């Protein structure tokens, strides 16, 4: 469970996040949606502790990051996994080395133990026969799987994903979305996902918050998002022609 209260963050005097208050539940896929430039990535990086907010507080299961000693901050960080927008795999390392990296840095396990865990998570994300390949040698969808594997290899309590299906074809995107949802339930993680993809919302949106120009404009679940009369949300949802046609068809009783 992550609770955010009155979060403010800006750059060089320009406010990007303007007082966001919300919460994300454990074991659920929480979605942050909004148009490009609405501040989703900045918000996620605040949750990760990569950006220090100017104002407001973030509580991770009741613990505030800012009140911790550097040592404690680091151990809290190690309970977070992140899937970056472009996967951010280390391009000089093989798939296996990428996933093993967090274990190598922070555990005293033997190499065989680490490899066992690495193979288990790679299997969990359905990635086989690519262990020795470099990131540049595998497809975008496979890179995402590796990124997810790397994020969960240390059994984090919090998982953050920045547009996990950007750049993927629609079918692969749905598979990746569902993988994240399954892992969230299986490991009982608090998962927060940035997206601007309505397909993801339909597929895995359990709790949805809508950001606009740094404000929290709306929150709800996926059944409510199609019935809300909030103008900004409907504009966003029905900016896709497909959804518009479906709605018009429904209105006409087709």
């Amino acid at each position: 469970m992550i609770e955010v209260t009155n979060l403010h963050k800006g750059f060089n005097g320009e406010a990007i996040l303007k007082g966001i208050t919300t919460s994300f539940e454990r074991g659920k896929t929480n979605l942050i949606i909004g148009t490009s430039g609405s501040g989703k990535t900045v918000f996620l990086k605040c949750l990760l502790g990569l950006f220090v907010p100017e104002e407001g507080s973030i509580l991770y299961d009741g613990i505030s990051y800012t009140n911790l000693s550097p040592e404690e901050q680091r151990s809290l960080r190690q309970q977070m996994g992140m899937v970056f927008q472009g996967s951010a795999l280390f391009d000089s390392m093989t798939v296996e080395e990428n996933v093993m990296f967090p274990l190598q840095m922070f555990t005293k396990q033997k190499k065989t133990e680490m490899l066992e865990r690495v193979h288990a998570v790679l299997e969990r994300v359905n990635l086989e026969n690519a262990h020795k390949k470099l990131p540049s040698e595998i497809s975008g969808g496979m890179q995402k799987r590796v990124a997810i594997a790397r994020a969960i290899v240390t059994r984090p309590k919090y998982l953050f994903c920045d547009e996990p299906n950007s750049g993927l074809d629609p079918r692969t995107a749905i598979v990746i979305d569902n993988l994240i949802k399954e892992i969230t339930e299986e490991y009982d993680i608090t998962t927060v996902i940035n997206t601007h993809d309505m397909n993801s919302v339909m597929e895995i949106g359990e709790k949805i918050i809508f950001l606009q120009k740094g404000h929290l404009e709306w929150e709800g679940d996926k059944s409510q998002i199609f019935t809300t009369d909030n103008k900004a949300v409907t504009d966003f949802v029905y900016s896709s022609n497909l959804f518009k046609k479906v709605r018009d068809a429904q209105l006409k009783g087709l």
Partner: protein
Amino acid sequence: MFYLDAIGRYFLMLKGVFGRMTKGSVLRSLTLKEIDDLIIGSLGIVAFISFFIGAVVAIQTALNLTNPIIPRQLIGFASRQSVILEFAPTFISVIMAGKVGSFITSSIGTMRVTEQIDALEVMGINSLNYLVFPKIIAMMTYPFLIAISMFLGILGGYIAGVYGGFLSSDEFITGLQDEFIPFHLVYAFLKTLLFAFLLATIPSFHGYYMKGGALEVGKASTTSFVWTSVAIIIGNYILTQLLLSS
């Protein structure tokens, strides 16, 4: 104001580099990899340039020695002095600012724009230490490269001088041994160590703090080359003033 700000951030970066250390075994293997990339990978070009620069220095000196009173052995003396004092440490370092410097800036810059640095930070790793510290340690082997450069430069001078028919082998060697001041070597290697540090850190700075995308990585590499060369030239001036003029 802009420059002062950049210099300030450079020193803050150094503080981060020498801050919390990455796990020893990891640092060791990173350092070995950097020695391979930065030093071993530059052997070829450094050897090539040194040999021919040494040869050209000898030929130039020979061609300009028109006064018969000046002994031919001066060619050996001049080759030694110019190669040891300037060509090997300074000239090669400027070349390295292009070769190694742009490699460092573009590799760290790419990690920045593809969020690999963020990924390190999220895992709780001191990314500055992880990325820059091994480069600094690796560059501490740079004096070996410069020693090779000195040797090959003088060898180039010898071959061009003797086989070009400008002076005899004995004359060249007498010239080489003429008025040799051991402190000149100390001076040359102190310079080399300073340049090694600059070569590892300034390009890292330009890569680490860059913003933007692939296009900016290219621009950052160019800027990094300019600033590393400028720093080397200024450092050279200051050290020469401090160590040689008394």
